[in-house]
Structure formats: C-alpha cells, structure tokens
C-alpha cells in the first residue's frame, strides 16, 4: 500500500503545511532534471520518498511531472503541472455551487466538492435561508480543515477568511502558486505595491484581485499571467518589475 499523504491529518502535518505556505524559492543556479511519472528516482531503503513520489519496493518512483529535488536522505518532485491536490491547512478560494440545509457545497478546483457547514462560520446565521449569508456563485476565502477519503471539510473560523466582494477572479495552475507568492510573499507584494491592488492567492490556483480602478486590476492580472506562463525563467522578478514599471507610466 503506497503512502498516501493527502489522507493524513494530524497536528504535526498541519504544522508542516503552514510552512508550506511559504513556498520554496527555486534556485536558478542549480539545474534540475525534469522527471515524468513512473521514472525511477533513487534506490535504497534509507532514502525517504517526499512529495510527488512513492516507494515501490526498493525503488523510489516519481508520481508527477516536474523538477527533481534530491538531497542526501529525501527525494521529492516539484510539480510543473497537474490538478490541485487539497491538503489540510491550505487557504483556498472557493465558489458556492450548492446551498444545503446545514451548509454550502463549494468548488475548490479539486476532484471532490468541498463542504462548509454552518457550524464552521462565525456569528449568528439564519438557518431558514442560508443564501442570505452566502449565495450561489459567490466566492470565499476558506481554509481546509480536513481532507477525508471522499470529502473536503472547510472552515471560516479563522482570521482573514471571508466572503470576497467586488474585484475579479482569475485561474492559474496551482503548481505556479509558490512562484506567484514568491519567497516570503515577495512577488505578490511587489505586484500589490506597484498596482495598488489587494490580491489574495489561494493555494488551489484561484487568485482574487481588487483595485481602485479596473485598469489596475487588469495590469495585476497580466503580471500574474506572466509569472504563471514562465515560472522557471531566470530573473523573473526583474521581468515582472520591469513590466509593472512600464505600465505604471502609461
């Protein structure tokens, strides 16, 4: 039975997920091999299979398409493409697709629909009409509380989780999210400062942008598209800065 990380939720895991929100900056000086699913990455019991890999007997095999990251004891694959895999502790943006008697069904771009129960929301909620609180096709910033084999449970009981009003929503590949955020949020901060927009990046690849003017939002959207199209280019931060400077003068 392969080790399935997505079904694994305990405190330690949550802690690790929080650090995952600060994504690793890709070192451009070091060239990395591109691997495909099924490729044998390492041999030996002493090496641990990390994210995007699995153990098959003695061998560690890639289960995703991406860049190989190999250290002495750990092998992992930084994905270049693919669908979003939900993890407990991730902050995502979701859209209401159904309203039930005790909560909302939310699309978070994963293979299963997520569920936000009334219990997990703040304040008084009139249970007779839940659409008064969150209506169809509205978008929310939510946190994934737990990932179960056939369902995803969400929560709103945390700071910064809210319904998003106004602005625009764009979709990028979830594998590009670490690049959009940048080291300790540097990339997204650059875009925020230059365009005067408020930006929320969900781990699932949905990005919400709201500025004072629609034109600012479009510039921010384009900057994010540049990052998501060429995430592994050398000197990307400079390129984005240059693009923003050029558009600022207009």
């Amino acid at each position: 039975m392969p080790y399935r990380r997505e079904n694994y939720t305990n405190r330690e895991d949550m802690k690790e997920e929080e650090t995952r929100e600060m994504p690793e900056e890709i070192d451009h000086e070091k060239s990395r091999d591109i691997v495909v699913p099924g490729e044998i990455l390492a041999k030996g019991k002493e090496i641990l299979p990390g994210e995007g890999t699995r153990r098959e007997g003695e061998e560690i095999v890639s289960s995703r398409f991406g860049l190989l990251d190999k250290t002495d004891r750990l092998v992992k694959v930084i994905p270049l493409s693919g669908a979003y895999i939900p993890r407990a502790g991730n902050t995502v943006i979701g859209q209401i697709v159904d309203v039930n008697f005790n909560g909302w069904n939310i699309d978070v771009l994963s293979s299963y629909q997520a569920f936000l129960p009334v219990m997990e929301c703040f304040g008084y909620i009139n249970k007779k009409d839940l659409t008064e609180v969150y209506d169809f096709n509205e978008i929310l910033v939510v946190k994934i509380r737990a990932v179960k084999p056939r369902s995803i449970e969400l929560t709103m009981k945390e700071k910064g989780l809210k319904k998003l009003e106004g602005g625009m929503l764009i979709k990028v590949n979830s594998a590009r999210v670490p690049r959009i955020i940048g080291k300790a949020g540097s990339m997204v901060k650059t875009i925020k400062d230059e365009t005067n927009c408020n930006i929320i990046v969900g781990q699932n690849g949905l990005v919400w942008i709201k500025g004072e003017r629609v034109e600012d939002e479009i510039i921010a959207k384009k900057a994010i598209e540049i990052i998501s199209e060429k995430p592994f280019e050398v000197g990307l931060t400079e390129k984005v800065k240059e693009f923003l400077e050029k558009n600022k003068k207009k």
Partner: protein
Amino acid sequence: MEISTVMKKRIEEIISKEKRIDDRELIESRELEIEIGISSKAEGSAQVKLGDTEVLAGIKLDLVEPFRDSPDAGVLTVNAELSPLASDRFESGPPGVKTIELARLIDRGLRNSECIDFKKLCVKKGEKVWSLAVDIYPINDAGNLIDASAIASIAALSVAVFPEVKEDKVQYGELTNKKIPFTNLPITVTVYKVDGKFIIDPTTEEEDASVARVTFTFTYPNEDLHSMQKVGDELSEDELIEMEEIALKEGKRLNTKITGLLKKA
C-alpha cells in the same frame, strides 16, 4: 465551474467601457492558426487554433444508398463530440444540448450555403452516392467554440479528397487526387451581446456574461446570408441589424484570412 458573481460584474463593467479583459477591441478576434492534414486516416482533416480554443475536424467518405426523396444527391452528416478533455464543464456520455446545437449550427451553415455540390456526389442514381461525414472534436474550449468549429470544418472540407474505389468498395487509406466538390467557403460568425454592447470571439468568461448571441453564416463575395440562429434574451430590430453588419464585416476579414491560410498550408 460557472462564472462567479464578481467576475461577471467586472466583465460587464469592462465591456461597458468599450474594452476587453484581454486588451482586445470589442470587434477583434484572437489569433487564428490552421493546420491541415493532421490525421492520416481521414480523407480531409484540419486543426484550428483560435487563441486558446483548439478544434479538430475530420472528413470521412463512404459509399451509401441515397435517401428515397433525393436519389441523385449525396449525404452530409455533421457530428460533434464535446469530450471532458476540452473543458471541465463537459461530461462524457450521450450528447447534450450544447453538443447537438454545435453540430446543427455547422450543419445548417454548410447545407444552406450550397457550398457542396450534392449532385456531383452521386455515383449511380438511386443506388450509390457518396456520404460526407464531418466530425468535430474540440480539444480545448476557451470560448467561441462555434466559430472555431466552423473554421475547422470548412478547412477540412476544402482539402478533402475522394478515396480509391475498387469493385464498388472504398479502399480506405488509398487516396486519389480528386477533390470533393466543395467550392465557396461559408463563413460563420457569432456576435454576442454583453451589457448592451456587441462583441465577437468571446473568451469563456465573456460567453458566460453574455445575455444573447446570434450566429450568422455568409458566403463571399456576394455577401449572401444563409443561416441565422439566435439564443438568449430578446433583441430589437435595430440591434439585430447592427449585429448582422458586424458579422458581415468580420466575416469578410475572416474569409480573406482563411483563404490566405489555406493557400499557404
């Protein structure tokens, strides 16, 4: 996933300012690319890229018995398949409303424009005629599937050739040099109405935000209108006339563009 309330509002706001979300003009289509002969099994095939929208079309020929009411005319069938590969909104299974509508729209454009000479597809009156099957497979749906599919099918038809026939049987895989009787390109243009303004070649989001759309098929240089299909809210007479003018003008540009691309390919 359907369009979110905030995004719909933003798109309406941007279009009401006569701008587009991807920096285009209201009446400006995305870049068009046509690749011909991509399938070795089909008698004619084409792949069309309209921005991020990608459509594959193939033509298969077969010898069949004609319909009783038209013993000397060939048969045309247009079939579309919206596979889940193209968009997360498509489900596998029996064809839905969207699939049937797409195939019917292309079919009507081809049939009513009389660009195919069905009489020339007759081999022996009342016994054997050629049947043309146009198959449309969208690879990626990023909006404006109707126009992209129409371009793909006319591109495939314009390069389709008859297969070899031996003893009344079609020898598949062996092609002749004889082209099928397809002459005038029927050009399909769909005009969308968003927030009181008219746009062409929408992205998926703009399609979602639109309240009505009208599909026109023209042939050039006579500028004949062959088919028209309206979906959505009611339109006034002036609006419909304006939409037709937009489509006619855009179709003219598209006609020259497609003819040029087909000559090059």
